[in-house]
């Protein structure tokens, strides 16, 4: 018994020792993000910070499908495992009103962050509620949805000739959504195991919404009025209906089994010679110009989301800002890191490492725009982006969108108008439930 007690005490002691050793080492910060390349780049940037200041930065990651769940589980438990989190733009409402994020408004004003970062990134990654001048995050990773395409297929003279004969104009990077559709149809050859286009269709998180938004915003449609929460006449407007039909039309030209596709599948469409064009976040393009991960790297080109029928050109926003977790014991140390992070030279380093800086100055520089084949398209896109609702109940709105749009897109149930009318009804009910816009 004495032996058991001794070993038990020793065990407890060990646990305490391990626990306290973490706290004893004050000079360390943990940042939580999803598991992808930019998180590795951020770790490298963190290593630079450690060299300069001695404060150790650890970037902890989890796979994308778990990211939201894991972060909010920690927030809801008021845990201090993470000092900072690089959260999705839609989380701003839940993070700020839930008391999970530290209010960074003073920091923003003191360091004039609003002037340093590109306007769209400040609006969507940092401010909540929209137009309130209250800020909860520092724009960290800019991102939006763009397109990659097979240059060798597009530039083949025989294809060019056949395309012109069929459609009456030259085969080139699509000038608008109609051209996007035509090219997708042209290259869709199931008998040759070649398909027209790869789009987002996964309905488990925001993939389907992002894909649809690309069409919606470029067709001049809107999700709703972000100030009054009015959705009738917005999400079910004629423009929105036309946009949904256009997006559904593209699904016809996707590779077989394209009903649960997101960034992994869409990059595979290019690397595995499946599709002529593929939608994806810019953040996933670095692996497409790397010959180790894409055998077609030399033949892969990029373009920004094309305009719709009326010339409107927008893209769905991805990307994240970095926030300080209000349950962290090291908020002061975290603030110091953010001060360092927004410096021009840090932002340059961040961009050089592969991070998508939101710094307006760096974005505008020729050095940045010529660094990769897609940086120019990224720069153009970042000034015409729009995002999903950022209210705390955004996940319910997202689920309702998936619930209505997916059966229409994939299963062909009902019409676009019925789908979007029903969605407007769902959203109205949800906003009513939370007392918004009443």
């Amino acid at each position, binding site marked *: 018994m004495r032996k058991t007690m001794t070993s038990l005490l020793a065990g407890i002691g060990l646990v305490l020792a391990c626990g306290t050793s973490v706290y004893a080492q004050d000079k360390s910060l943990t940042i939580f993000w999803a598991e992808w390349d930019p998180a590795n780049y951020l770790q490298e940037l963190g290593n630079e910070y450690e060299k300069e200041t001695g404060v150790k930065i650890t970037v902890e990651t989890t796979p994308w499908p778990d990211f939201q769940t894991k972060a909010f589980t920690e*927030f809801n438990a008021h845990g201090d495992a993470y000092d900072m989190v690089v959260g999705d733009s839609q989380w701003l409402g839940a993070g700020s009103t*839930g*008391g999970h994020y530290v209010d960074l408004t003073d920091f923003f004003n003191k360091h004039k962050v609003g002037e340093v970062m590109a306007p769209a990134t400040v609006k969507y990654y940092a401010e909540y509620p929209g137009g309130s001048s209250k800020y909860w995050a520092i724009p960290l990773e800019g991102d939006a949805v763009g397109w990659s395409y097979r240059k060798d297929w597009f530039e083949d003279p025989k294809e060019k000739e056949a395309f012109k004969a069929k459609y009456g104009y030259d085969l080139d990077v699509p000038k608008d959504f109609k051209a996007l559709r035509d090219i997708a149809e042209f290259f869709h050859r199931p008998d040759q195991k070649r398909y027209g286009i790869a789009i987002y269709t996964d309905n488990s998180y925001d993939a389907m919404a992002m894909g649809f938004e690309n069409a919606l915003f470029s067709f001049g449609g809107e999700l709703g009025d972000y100030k009054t929460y009015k959705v009738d006449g917005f999400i079910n407007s004629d423009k929105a209906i036309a946009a949904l039909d256009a997006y559904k039309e593209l699904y016809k030209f996707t590779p077989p*089994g394209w009903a*649960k596709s997101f960034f992994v599948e869409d990059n595979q469409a290019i690397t595995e010679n499946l599709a002529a064009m593929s939608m994806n976040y810019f953040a996933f393009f670095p692996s497409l110009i790397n010959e180790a991960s894409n055998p077609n790297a030399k033949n892969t080109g990029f373009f920004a989301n094309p305009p719709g029928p009326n010339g409107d050109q927008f893209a769905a926003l991805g990307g994240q800002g970095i926030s300080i977790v209000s349950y962290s014991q090291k908020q002061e140390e975290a603030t110091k890191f953010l001060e360092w992070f927004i410096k021009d030279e840090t932002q340059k380093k961040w961009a050089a490492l592969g991070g998508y800086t939101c710094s307006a100055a760096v974005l505008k520089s020729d050095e940045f725009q010529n660094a990769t084949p897609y940086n120019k398209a990224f720069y153009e896109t970042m000034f015409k982006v729009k995002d999903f609702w950022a209210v705390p109940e955004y*996940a319910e709105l*997202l*689920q309702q969108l998936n619930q209505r749009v997916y059966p229409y897109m994939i*299963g062909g149930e009902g019409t676009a108008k019925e789908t979007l009318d029903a969605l407007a009804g769902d959203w109205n009910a949800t906003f009513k439930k939370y007392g918004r816009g009443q």
Partner: protein
Amino acid sequence: MATTMITTLDRSSRAAARGLSDMSIRNLFIIPTILFLIVFNIFPLIYSLGYSFTDFRASTNAAANFVGLQNYRDLLNDPYVWSNFAITAKYVIISVAGQLLVGFGVAMLLNRDIPLKGLLTTLLLLPMMLSMAVVGLFWKLLYDPSFGIINYALGLGTFEWLSNPKMALYAVALTDIWMWSPFVMLLSLAGLSAVPKHLYEAAAIDRAGPFYTFFRITLPLVAPILMIAVIFRTMEAFKTFDLAYILTSQPTAELISIRLYKMAFQEWQTGRSCALAYIVLIMVLAITNIYVKYLNKVKER
């Protein structure tokens, strides 16, 4: 020797030297288990019952308001939730029936003297030993219309198993049947080998046909153990999550547990998801009770 060790304490043991009675040893073993159960099972169960009557959201700091039966009313009026239940029922019936058919069939085949019977049985048990998530990921590849081996082997071209809304649920059920038939097989084998041989001999003497023998001797004697397999598999199938979640995102294959997960951990509607969890719990309890009643009846015969 073994039995005396349990009932009385060996005089020379250390426990006896310290004067620990049988009672204290029993308490030492049982109390931690009961405490563990109370802290991690019973307490959350009761606590979540309380939450199910509120509009609590774990993701906000807002206080929980008592809303009475609102959550239950909303859920039972939600056509999507009903469709989830219908899908789940369909899935349970298909997959449990399939497992019963395949598992019992294979057990009948194995219940004779064949060479390498032990090895064969062990190999057949392999699917059951894999993790659900791994099986899901593997079958996703097997079902792939472009390079999946199933379409290749069956010559189905680019047949879409998982992205066809009408097929997705069957594809998930098929995977579940593959994975869990061995479980039914194992139980059936145990039941079959317990059937007294003399009954078959008597039937043979009376010139009973194979069908008569099967329906009058084999099936009634194996029935109780088959019922146990059905109870286990129904409960498991009812709460299937990982397999279906990994394989497909078709709304036509959205089982109730997936809906519950989304409501609780993506939308953070904690109060409402507690209510849904209770509805599911009551349903599983009711179904299991019916089965257990039936099982007792079968045993009595």
